[in-house]
């Protein structure tokens, strides 16, 4: 194209403008790349810890358990049950029998029990995935030299057993079922508290509240509350839910005195505390979504003589719902990863029974991860890595279901 004739007062600066555009383009792309690299590094780091070689020794030599020269792996179920009966205390034996009668357990399960409770393998050393892949021979040599009795296995710390087993103090048999259930119970109460109250408050502030100084103060404070550090909510939860409302949160007023949780350090307290924590986030996002509903739609509704409530319920809320759910997804993701407030509220660090009511003691996945990472032994870090993967999967599946729900709303018309 022929260059445009120079007009008085204008400069031909198209090249300079394009160069500046390219510069910003590169900068924005670079920031995206940095983000992706960080994410990949995080995932690789976790995966690196979650798989690898483990050297372990039996605390009780299995050979000593052989009966008439038959090693335990070849023994019959009755022989194994007899072994359990004679080795464990009668209390422990009865407890196992109560959980699931030995008559109903398969040979496989009984054998597992013998390994867990009698042989009790002990981890002596663990290796991460990268050295396990690249220096397998050196690892084998090290084990043969330092721990001649130890067995070396390549294990995935993340297994279906890991997800379904309760917590124990033995790394090789520990699982996160307790923590997963704790997280789910907690998040259930978080949603039950925060979603209806948050959306209700947002509707009030956007649709009903008049623009006076009191409501402006409330609005400002909600915005500020969204930025309050989570540990402060923990202290609030401790004071209100655990202490002040103890009869409620421990289930006493419902006559459900649970010996394991005579205090308010329960799933209910944790859920309500996290509910308070995410409430401002849900309110602010819901307000944004409600504000984004076009005036023309409200006019249409009022113009045919609808009341304010009919307008809000039939038009404003359905139109705002995808936005409200997006905000809720963000809030739930935040709640499910919170650790600090739950530490203050009193999450248990070592419980092996599943939470089964709002008044159960609880632990959650982030608490479990925090607790395992703070142990000195390497094997617990591998367990923590595996738990992180479980937490990520749990988070993604909760989010996916919320996204599906949101899409159902936005597809209506």
């Amino acid at each position, binding site marked *: 194209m022929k260059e445009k004739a120079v007009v008085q007062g204008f400069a031909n600066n198209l090249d300079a403008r394009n160069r500046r555009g390219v510069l910003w383009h590169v900068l924005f792309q670079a920031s995206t790349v940095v983000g992706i690299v960080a994410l990949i590094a995080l995932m690789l780091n976790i995966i690196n810890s979650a798989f690898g070689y483990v050297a372990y020794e039996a605390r009780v030599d299995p050979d000593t358990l052989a009966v008439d020269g038959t090693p335990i792996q070849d023994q019959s179920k009755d022989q194994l049950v007899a072994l359990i009966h004679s080795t464990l205390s009668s209390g422990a034996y009865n407890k196992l029998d109560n959980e699931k009668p030995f008559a109903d357990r398969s040979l496989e399960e009984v054998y597992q029990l013998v390994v867990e409770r009698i042989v009790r393998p002990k981890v002596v050393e663990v290796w991460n995935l990268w050295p396990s892949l690249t220096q397998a021979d050196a690892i084998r040599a090290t084990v043969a030299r330092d721990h001649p009795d130890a067995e070396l296995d390549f294990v995935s710390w993340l297994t279906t057993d890991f997800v379904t087993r309760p917590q124990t103090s033995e790394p090789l048999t520990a699982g996160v079922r307790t923590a997963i259930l704790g997280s789910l119970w907690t998040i259930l109460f978080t949603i039950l508290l925060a979603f209806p109250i948050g959306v209700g408050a947002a509707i009030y502030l956007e649709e009903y509240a008049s*623009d006076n100084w009191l409501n402006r103060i409330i609005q400002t404070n909600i915005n500020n509350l969204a930025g309050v550090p989570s540990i402060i909510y923990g202290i609030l939860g401790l004071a209100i839910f655990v202490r002040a409302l103890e009869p409620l949160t421990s289930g006493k007023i419902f006559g459900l005195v649970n010996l394991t949780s005579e205090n308010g350090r329960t799933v209910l307290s944790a859920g309500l505390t996290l509910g308070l924590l995410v409430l401002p986030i849900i309110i602010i996002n819901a307000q944004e979504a409600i504000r984004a509903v076009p005036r*023309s*739609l*409200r*006019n*249409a*509704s*009022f*113009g*045919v*003589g*609808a*009341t304010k409530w*009919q307008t809000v319920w*039939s*038009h404003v809320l*359905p*139109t705002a719902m995808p936005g409200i759910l997006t905000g809720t997804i963000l809030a739930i993701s935040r709640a499910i990863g919170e650790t600090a407030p739950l530490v203050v509220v009193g999450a248990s660090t070592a419980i092996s029974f599943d939470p089964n009511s709002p008044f159960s003691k609880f632990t959650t996945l982030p608490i479990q991860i925090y607790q395992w990472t703070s142990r000195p032994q390497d094997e617990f870090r591998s367990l923590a890595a595996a738990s992180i993967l479980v937490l990520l999967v749990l988070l993604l599946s909760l989010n996916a279901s919320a996204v599906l729900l949101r899409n159902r709303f936005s597809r*209506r*018309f």
Partner: protein
Amino acid sequence: MTANNNADRQYVMETRDLDIYYGSFKAVTGVNMKIERNAITAIIGPSGCGKSTLLRAFNRMNELYAGTSIKGQVLFDGEDIYAPQIDPVEVRYRIGMVFQKPNPFPKSIYENIAWTARIHGYRGKMDELVENSLRQAALWDEVKDKLGQSGLSLSGGQQQRLCIARAISIKPEVILMDEPASALDPIATLKIEELMQELKKNYTIVIVTHNMQQAARASDYTAMMMLADRETRSGTVIEFDDTKVIFTNPKDKRTEDYVTGRFG
């Protein structure tokens, strides 16, 4: 300023010394006009002179905009619709409105009308009501096979007729139209104008329009609005008469300048 001198019972609405404020700003000053039953009254005038503001005051839609207030009276069947015992929802039920931009509900064509009827407690045959409303709005033949589709899937002109069908489904006594054809092409505009002539038999229509040919073609009475003076930027009705008089023999020089295109 009355359009003619017939007996009062022919008038369905009347304003008395109506002032409309946005906060402390007086947008419309001293409007006195009577709206005749089963006639089309057009409000014309340059941009920003308060035509839409005046129209919204006729069914209290202006109250949905923060900070608005009025002085004076708006009578509907002789009763002041701004009286404290009057519910604005009731006012909007009896005095319907069609807006500048077509705004069907994001629901099916059927539901657009059915929802409107349901909130007012309609217990009759819904299918019949939907069909009759769409027929009256001259839309039935175009949509009868796709009543389940979204109202937003229609063309602009069809959407506007759906909005009219929605408005008349609850049998209002007056229909206010705020530039209903300004977002439409000439063919759709013509359809809306034909429809207005049809609706006039059963309803009273007040229409705000920028389009002077439209006012001349379609209306029986015309109110000419203009800023009362440059200082206050407050609009008022400077002349209100038979449409023929306004367009052929206006009394006010400003009206003549405006309708002949010498003023804009």
